[in-house]
């Protein structure tokens, strides 16, 4: 079920009201049923895949806790392999086979192609698989007691607000909350609804509006003037932020209305002064997941500088691959590896120290935004060749294209008007200005009731008056 659908408009209040009407001991059941309905609104049969990983990890958790030190590791490896296997089959199998086939054909080894699987990627697979894996790892490390209640453990993996696109929670933060008795609180309700409104504003007013332009240009990038490509790339940088952080805000807000606290996933990333800071502010739940479970597992910075650089590279490449089985995502990960290692090397060896003032901060923010936007070209492009074409046409300032003019081109404008561009840009500026002033959860508004009312009225009115209600899916659902 999409957050931006009429179904959710009924589902959300109904679930929240029933949650408080139900006796505490049955609330887990209500939330589990609601989460199943939420997930099954996409492709019902795929709940079986979720069920498979839930059963494996539930058993693994208990077995790991009870086992001796040596066996604990074996059971952890089995559980991780089972999760990775699901990902490998549904997400990476076809990519791997396609590349093997291509390799064989290009070397003339075989004219026959290995068969591909005709399957649709289950929605949010990488998210809930990673959340499930974090549970077994934490049990193994002794940071989390194994959950005996199968229903509550299932809910930990399936909790509907963050089931399909995170934040990827840690068991220490979420599991115990299902056992706590939450009382209705109008403060939580207000905080949650406000954050949801903010998320909907980012998604419906900005992301879905800009996506119309981005889609037209990126669907046939070779046909467009270089300025169109630059504008579409910058729009995509804003679109993906508003889309994904908008989703996170709605998820955190929806959970908040019932009294649950989910972790912050975005902290104004486009105001980062360097690439390292960017990764501390963008998709925080995934960055910390990789840091906690992969970077540290690889040795972190405990085995010297060279090894640290290698570990960082591995983490970013895996992070790219996590997003999707496509060379574009791997290239995106590789670019970020390059950026971050260059930054770390510079930081380590350069003797030039910039003074810390407004100008150097602005320069840092601008440079980081440009680098991140450049990498988004690879993330958004339909194929690696499309991505290189975009880069080439931008660098060579190519204006020898079918749609030669920039924004006033009638072919582009017939589908996406100048009004949309103007509204999208103005709304994005307003959004960034508000985010500079307010913390990610918008809590500072709590102390100023009138400002709070003004904020909610302003946001809600803009959603109704300027929202794009085209039922666009969230970008990160595909991961």
């Amino acid at each position, binding site marked *: 079920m999409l957050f931006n659908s*009429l179904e959710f408009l009924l589902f959300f209040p109904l679930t929240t009201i029933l949650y408080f009407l139900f006796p505490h001991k049955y609330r887990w059941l209500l939330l589990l049923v609601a989460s199943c309905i939420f997930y099954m609104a996409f492709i019902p049969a795929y709940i079986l895949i979720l069920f498979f990983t839930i059963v494996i990890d539930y058993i693994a958790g208990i077995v790991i806790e009870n086992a001796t030190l040596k066996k604990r590791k074996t059971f952890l490896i089995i559980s991780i392999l089972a999760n990775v296997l699901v990902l490998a089959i549904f997400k990476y199998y076809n990519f791997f086979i396609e590349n093997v086939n291509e390799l064989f054909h290009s070397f003339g080894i075989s004219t026959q192609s290995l068969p591909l699987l005709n399957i649709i990627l289950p929605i949010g697979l990488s998210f809930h698989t990673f959340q499930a894996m974090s549970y077994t790892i934490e049990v193994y490390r002794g940071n989390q007691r194994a959950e005996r209640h199968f229903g509550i453990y299932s809910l930990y993996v399936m909790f509907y607000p963050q089931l399909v696109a995170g934040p990827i929670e840690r068991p220490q933060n979420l599991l115990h909350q299902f056992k706590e008795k939450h009382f209705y609180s*109008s*403060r939580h*309700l*207000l905080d949650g*609804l406000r954050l949801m409104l903010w998320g909907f504003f980012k998604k419906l007013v900005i992301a879905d*509006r800009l996506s119309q332009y981005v889609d037209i240009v990126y669907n*046939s990038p070779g*046909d467009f003037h270089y300025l169109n490509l630059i504008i579409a790339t910058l729009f995509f940088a804003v679109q993906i932020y508003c889309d994904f952080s908008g989703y996170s805000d709605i998820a955190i807000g929806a959970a908040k209305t019932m009294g649950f606290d989910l972790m912050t996933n975005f902290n104004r990333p486009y105001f980062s002064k360097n690439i390292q800071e960017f990764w501390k502010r963008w998709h925080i739940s995934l960055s910390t997941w990789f840091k906690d479970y992969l970077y540290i597992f690889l040795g972190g910075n405990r085995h010297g500088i060279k090894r640290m650089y290698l570990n960082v590279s591995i983490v970013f490449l895996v992070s790219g691959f996590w997003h999707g089985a496509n060379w574009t995502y791997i290239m995106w990960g590789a670019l970020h590896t390059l950026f971050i290692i260059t930054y770390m090397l510079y930081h380590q060896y350069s003797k030039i120290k910039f003074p810390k003032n407004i100008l150097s901060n602005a320069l840092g923010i601008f440079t980081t935004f440009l680098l991140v936007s450049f990498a988004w070209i690879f993330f958004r492009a339909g194929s690696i060749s499309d991505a290189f074409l975009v880069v080439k046409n931008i660098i060579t300032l190519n204006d020898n294209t*079918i749609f030669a003019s920039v924004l006033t081109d009638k*072919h582009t404008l017939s589908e996406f*008007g100048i*009004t*949309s561009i103007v*509204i999208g840009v103005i709304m994005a500026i307003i959004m960034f200005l508000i985010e500079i002033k307010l913390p990610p959860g918008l809590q500072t508004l709590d102390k100023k*009731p*009138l400002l*709070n*009312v003004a904020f*909610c*009225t302003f946001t*809600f*009115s803009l959603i*109704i*008056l300027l*929202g*794009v*209600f085209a*039922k666009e899916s969230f970008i990160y659902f595909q991961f």
Partner: protein
Amino acid sequence: MKPLAQIVLSLILTFVICQLAYLVINKGTERYYIHKEERLTELFKNRTTFDVLFVGSSRTHTSINPKIVDSVCQLHSYNAGVEGGNLLEFKMTIEAYLQNHPPPAMLLLTLDINSFDLKRPFFNYSQYLPFVKNRVINQTLNNNGHRTALIKLLPFMKIASYDDYMKGNALKGLKGNNEIPEGEYQYKGYMTNTQRGLKDTQVIVTGYRQAAVAAKAVDYLDDIIKRCSTNKIKLLFSYAPEFKNGLQDQFSNKEEVFNLVDSIAVKNNITYFRDDKLSLCTEPELFANFGHVNRKGADKYSMIVAERLCDKR
């Protein structure tokens, strides 16, 4: 102020702001689309008897003048072309029309290359909102993701159904403009489309996009054929004129679509007029753009259509 009071106050203020905005925007929309409303009222509310109905997209809307057809053949025809229409809208138009009107004797259905594309079910679904009392309109909107009940309950939610293009037109309406530019007119659903001819006649864009052919769209066409057959309506297919194939050449799979329509026409014994092959299609002074004839072109094409209809009567 207590949190709950803040929520209630925010809701009330939002509803007031949106209702006020709706009153303003709606006034602009009504003014801008005054002719469209008139057209759709004739089709979906009135009960006039017409002998011939022309159904299709803007390429029908601006190319067949019932005045010419009626005077040549002594018929009473109506142009039911809708801007950006696809087979879902064509089917809905025909079915909703038949709710109130007696069946016409003939129906000329113009099929474009992208008539089978249902990715965007309605080009402008909000134009149908004043007509949701018509059962077919109401059902089709609801079946395609547009819940009319919400709009009936909260009228300002209508704004949520307007895209930026519509909102821009509402602003134009507030300034006193309407859909029909100065010097143009509307007659029985037909809208004139400038007197100017084509200046730039060079076709530069070829085969850059693929026309979607949705299986559902083929089913809708089948439904239209069945409906016409049950109501004893003589159904004819056409492909409207275009300048030197300038529109169809944009699609890399145009032959696939033509063959599909051809096979359906042959199977159901329906005459299919390929009017892209008419000699007028090479005369730039008859076209407003590559896909649409201008007023002069429409006069000439309407004569051709009229003569055909006289023959087919």
